[in-house]
């Protein structure tokens, strides 16, 4: 599967799609970027009068680019009949810097292992200045359906 086909296979849409671009995807990892849309509804409440991207959304962004795009690629590689889907099963992430509305972030994931349908990765997110925003590990099960 190429980058465009993977993006089309993603099961998300506005306001929950956090991938603009997938710049690299291969056997051992994926790289992509997203610019946080300042119009997102979440900024109205997180925080009141002081919008900052919630940590859970940073995790989601890392998962969509680093884990899900990679999982769909690896599932396609395994010559599965149906398009692969990925269920997030665990996350251990450290947050280092805030991400404000309109900021562009880049996510890089590296595969630790993909065995028995479980994909385990290290992921890191950097901002436009190249500073690490958050990093850690994510895991998911690569399946053929969304609800397990």
């Amino acid at each position, binding site marked *: 599967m190429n980058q465009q086909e993977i993006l089309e296979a993603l099961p998300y849409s506005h306001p929950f799609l956090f991938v603009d671009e997938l710049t690299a995807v291969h056997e051992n990892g994926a790289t992509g970027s997203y610019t946080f849309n300042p119009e997102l509804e979440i900024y109205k409440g997180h925080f009141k009068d002081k919008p900052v991207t919630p940590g859970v959304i940073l995790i989601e962004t890392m998962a969509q680019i680093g884990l899900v795009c990679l999982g769909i690629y690896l599932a396609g590689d395994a010559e599965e009949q149906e398009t692969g889907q990925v269920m997030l099963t*665990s996350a251990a992430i450290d947050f280092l810097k805030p991400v404000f509305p309109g900021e562009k972030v880049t996510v890089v994931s590296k595969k630790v292992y993909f*065995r*028995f349908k479980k994909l385990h990765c290290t992921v890191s997110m950097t901002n436009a200045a190249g500073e690490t925003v958050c990093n850690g590990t994510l*895991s998911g099960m690569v399946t053929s359906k969304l609800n397990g």
Partner: protein
Amino acid sequence: MLNLMLKEDLINRLKTIVSPYAQNKEALDSIHEETDFINDLKINSANLVDVILDVEEAFDIVIDNDAMEKMLTVKASMEVIEAKLSEK
């Protein structure tokens, strides 16, 4: 056939391996041959993969998909480990 001592030893080694992933600590404390990883220990499918990978490392064996699918109880896991060790 494994003798009783070896069996006890194997169950104890499995207990150490599953312990970080077992949600049900009472079932873990009373682990025995018939203990089911998913139903008794409440290990989820993602952590079950980690159990298999940890078994591979602890016993220096390679577990294939067919063997992995069988490894749902202590007893079935002991049989797989025993079979893989005897192939070495």
